[in-house]
Every structure is written in C-alpha cells, then in structure tokens.
C-alpha cells in the first residue's frame, strides 16, 4: 500500500524539461524531503504530484493530496475561523482542533488580514489539517516561520505521519525530521537531447 507513486516522471517548467527519470514511492508514515538548488524544479514537481500540471512523461498515482504553497489562499476580510471553516466544508470535514494544534485558538475571530506573516503561515498549515488528506505536498512550508513555529510545524508533521499520513516537503532548511528520506533533485536534471534533423515535435 502506498499513498503516492511516481513512475518515470519527467517534469517541465514553461515548456522546457527540467527533471526526468524520477521514480519513487511513498508509504504511510514516510516523509520525503526534496532538496536541490533554486530553479531545479521543486515547485514544478510538487504541482505535478498535486495534479495541477501534467507530467511530460510518466505517471503519478495518488488518491488526492493536501497541497500548500507560497500563497496561502487566505482571504484578508474573512476571520480565521471563516477561512478555515470554508476549506473544511469544501473537503467535507470539520475544523475540529486544528486551530488549537496550530496555536491559533486565541485569534479565531480576528480577520486574517490583521495576522502577522508567521500567523498567516500557521493558518495556511492549519488548512492542511482540515483537508483530511493523508498525503501532504508542501512547498517551502517554513518560510517566514520563527524557530518556535518551525518546531511546532515539525511536531504537526510528525504527528500526521505517525497517524498513517505521509508528506513530500520541498525545503532549504533542516526541519529536524531525522526520519525523513531525502531526494536530491540535482541528479535528475533533464539533459538536452540530440534533435534529429533540426526539429522534432517539441521543437528541440
């Protein structure tokens, strides 16, 4: 049983292949950390895994994922509770203790626009809890979090994974998740192939 399976994946950004030959599997209880220099295609890969973009080659198998990227999808004029309630209802779930777990209970009735950057980020991660999805795809989740919040976040991920979840995390910094597997993307960089006759279907 696996939550995510990628098979011979090739990923493009803006029509140009950036990664190819990626094959991996993620079972419940596993964390996969994506590493690599800027522009290597971490975000493009996560968007393919989330089903937002089509892979150039290969296939992705998963039963839906909770996706979180740089933009949190928060509405400044809605309260914290309203923001979270919306996503919970959309996923057919309850808000439950998500606010408490992300240390946001005291801010529940505040408008999301009045939160600090770190608080917004925590709210964005609380949204993941209410999706009820076992697989999390996280794009730089710790940007603008202080050390305490990073620890809080790592705790949430650990709890999620311990409860049978899994996560793919693209990040620059160490999250203190010793159990995580690391995938260095530099080794999967797509190389330019010889173009027979000058052109092919992809013009390269």
């Amino acid at each position: 049983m696996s939550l995510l399976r990628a098979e011979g994946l090739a990923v493009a950004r803006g029509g140009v292949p950036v990664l190819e030959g990626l094959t991996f599997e993620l079972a419940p209880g596993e964390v996969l950390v994506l590493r690599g220099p800027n522009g290597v295609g971490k975000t493009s890969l996560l968007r393919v895994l989330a089903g937002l973009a089509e892979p150039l080659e290969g296939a992705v198998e998963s039963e839906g994922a909770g996706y979180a990227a740089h933009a949190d999808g928060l509405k400044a004029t809605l309260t914290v509770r309203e923001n979270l309630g919306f996503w919970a209802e959309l996923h057919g779930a309850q808000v439950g203790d998500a606010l408490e777990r992300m240390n946001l209970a005291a801010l529940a009735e505040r408008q999301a626009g009045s939160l600090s950057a770190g608080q917004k980020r925590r709210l964005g991660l609380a949204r993941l809890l209410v999706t009820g999805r076992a697989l999390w795809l996280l794009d730089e989740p710790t940007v603008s979090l202080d050390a305490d919040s990073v620890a809080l976040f790592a705790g949430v991920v650990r709890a999620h994974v311990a409860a049978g979840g899994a996560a793919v995390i693209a990040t620059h910094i160490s999250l203190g998740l010793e159990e995580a597997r690391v995938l260095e993307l530099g080794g999967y960089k797509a190389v330019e192939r010889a173009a027979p006759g000058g052109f092919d279907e992809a013009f390269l």
Partner: protein
Amino acid sequence: MRALLIRDIRLAVRAGGGFGLALAFFLIVVVLVPFAVGPQPDVLGEIAAGVLWLGALLACLLSLDRIFALDHEDGSLDLLATAPVPMEGVVAVKALAHWLTTGLPLVLAAPVLGVLLHLPEPGFVWLTVSLAVGTPALSVIGCFGAALTVGLKRGGLLLSLIVLPLYVPVLIFGAEVARRGVEGFAVGTPLALLGGLAAGAVALLPFASAAAIRINLR
C-alpha cells in the same frame, strides 16, 4: 459547493469586496445619459430600454476580472483545484455568486432607473423580465472571459475585448424584448430566444471556463 457560494458572497459584501460598485456605475451611466442627449422626456423614453440594457451590461463587465484574479493571486485557485470538487462546479458557483452580487441588484435597480429615463409604462415589466433572464448569461459568459485571462498581468482591457463580442447576441435579444415591451408588441419570440441562449450558456460555458482555468494553472 454551498461553502464556496457563501464565501464568495461574503467576500463581495465585506469592505473592499466591490459590492455596490457595479450598481453605482449603473446609476452614474444612467444619470449621464440625459446630459448627453438632452432632457426631453420623449427622446429619453425612446432610448431608455436600450440605455438601461447597455448600462447593465457595462456594469456587469466592470466586476468580471475579480471573479478569478483575486483567487489566483492568493493561491486559492490552486487549492480549489486540488480540493475534491470538480472545477466545472467551482466555475459555475463563482458565476452564480457573481450574478447574485452584481446581476441581481442590477435587475432590481433597473426599474427605478427606468423612472429617471421616462421609460414608458408598459416597458417596466418586460425590461425587468429581460434583464432577469439575460444577466445570468452575462455572468457565465463573463466568467469564461475571466477564466481565459486569469493569469495575465494586464488582463482587464483584454477581458473586455474578448467578452464584449460574445455579449452581442444576449444584448440583441434582451434589448429587443425590452423594446417590444415598451411598444406593446408581442415579446414571445425574442424572449424565448433569450431564454434559450441563457440556458445554453449556463449549461455549457462552465465546461469551457473550467478547461481554461486548468490550462492557466499548469
């Protein structure tokens, strides 16, 4: 789906949501018309139905770029696309929310503004009916234009250029119903055509809009 509708309406009516802007624009257009063509009641009465339809159409156009652009900027659109709801449904609900916050107020305001333009007595009912049937089509067609241009930096003007030609049939049939109503002719044929057009647009265009959104999110 209900959650999305409630959220969109809530966002529209809260401060900065733009609710009322379209209505105010509609009012201003109607107020400016007599300055341009003169205050004679018979002249105004003759053009009133057409002016009110055109004003409603432009007011509707004004708020189109908000439908998806804000959700695209803050990442909500990505998250909606990964949520367990079909994109076609998301698009349809957003168009419905747009109609409820823009089209419906315009329909309700049109008879009042008709008084300002000396709209002849028999025209009121059919003006309101034609707008009530036609504005949902304006919302879904506009939604399609907004979906096409969602990823663009300066999409506003392009959106108008794309959407306005698509509005032609709706405007023709809608204004025809109102005009025939004013003159006391039978409105059955244009009203049926307008209704058919609106029903077709509401039923089919969300699929095209959803396809455009998916392409833009890639």
